[in-house]
């Protein structure tokens, strides 16, 4: 199945799953945010990062340990 950025199902279903209510204006904002964020999120998920262990508690004041 191909990924989709269609918000029609995802947004109402997602909000309903949490029991979160949203009025029409809020839904319009959420749809706009979803249109902006979802395509790059799908690209991010497609990245092969299997060999990249995330730094555990990285010290962001310093370069990473080698």
């Amino acid at each position, binding site marked *: 199945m191909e990924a989709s950025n269609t918000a029609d199902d995802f947004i109402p279903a997602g909000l309903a799953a949490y029991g979160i209510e949203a009025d029409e204006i809020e839904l319009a904002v959420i749809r706009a945010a979803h249109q902006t964020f979802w395509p790059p999120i799908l690209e991010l998920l497609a990245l092969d990062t299997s060999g990249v262990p995330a730094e555990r508690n990285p010290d962001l004041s*310093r370069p990473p340990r080698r």
Partner: protein
Amino acid sequence: MSEALNLSLQGQAAAIAGGDVDPAELLEAALERIAARNPALNAVVATFPERSREMLAAAPPGPLHGVPIVIKDEWPLPWRAQRFGAAEMLAPTAPGESGPYRALRDAGAVIVGVGNMHELGASSTGSISVYGPARNPWDPERCPGGSSSGPAAAVAARLVAGAVGADGIGSIRYPAAYCGLTGLKPTFGRAAMAGHHMADVSSTIVSGPLCTDAADCRLLGSVLYGEELRKGEPGPVRIGIIRGDVSEDVAPEVRAACEAAIEDLGRETGGEVREIELPELPAATLATVLIANSESLGDITPERLNHLDPELSPIGRGLLKYRVLLPAIATIKAQQVRTLARHTLARLFEDVDLIAWPTVPAVAPPLEAPLVELPSGTLTADEANVRGGALANLTGIPAISVPVGSSQGLPVALQLQAAWGRDELLLDAAEAIERANGRSWVDAVPPVRAETLEA
């Protein structure tokens, strides 16, 4: 006394220390100027003259003795909880001694007002706030930048000579760029952070100075860091530039000014410009947004989201609710991108001293419609700005925004980024750019000051 307000931060401190300026008179002059100029700008959302006078009366000798400062509505004060530019915050807040407050107090500074900010710190524009938006002194119909909108507008209009902001995703550098100031985002963890409502959970937010030039940022920054940011000669600086959206999908006049400034910096220091590659940059932008958003989720419950203060903007309400729909797997991937970007940067900083690109790709957009026209088309200012602002927050490196030109009568700015802990190099390099262009842009005066310079 009002002319003393036009001095630099260093100048005010020196004039007070030398007995040429009475700090009590300077404080009253600052309050009068805020009363006169602020209604058109909405930069300062709270003053507390008695508290300020008490602070001055108790001020110890120090590098900022008697100097008025504005602090962003993101930091609690002993007499006032921060509101974060919003009708409602999800995190608990209370009055208290934040790290920046303590640093300022111990340096002898006088907090004269609280600076406006974008609601919940959620935009690079400053166009939404529970107080109404702050306005850009270069054009009050334009965005001042965000989220540290009020601190930037206050300094640009010279209500004060220095202000303290906070930078979670570019929030000091964007308003510095839009308002023609110098704004320093410290290395993560180097500047005072205690008392921030996200101090224990955020991996991106830092406090930092907004001033007219690098020397003033060095002075106020040293106070916030709790250590002297020593001035040095940058020597031959190796400047890395990156091809791609961050430097090329940029308004032509902004691109030209920034390229010229990069050449100036290379020439001034006897350095050189090199092309470098940072393949993680596009993913790093999204990764920063995902991480920053996930770090505030701990304060969210569905119940609270169903009872948000109706005074919170519809955009604020909608974005808070959208955060819960962001998938956890994306945040895990974002952490991996952070690791990759940090390793790549560590390698790059063996070959270059600085990485340079425009702070923002276009000048301040209208408050009514914060959109920018770029070669690729029309984008929201936030979409466009985050491309250049996020990397430093994701990876922890320091960055500075330096005014380097003008387009449509509005400031243009270059961002410099350096390796972890090399904050002083950024200030040295910013000063080299100022020397190279004869301080043309740090000394430029916005119309709101020119019209009322004698006020």
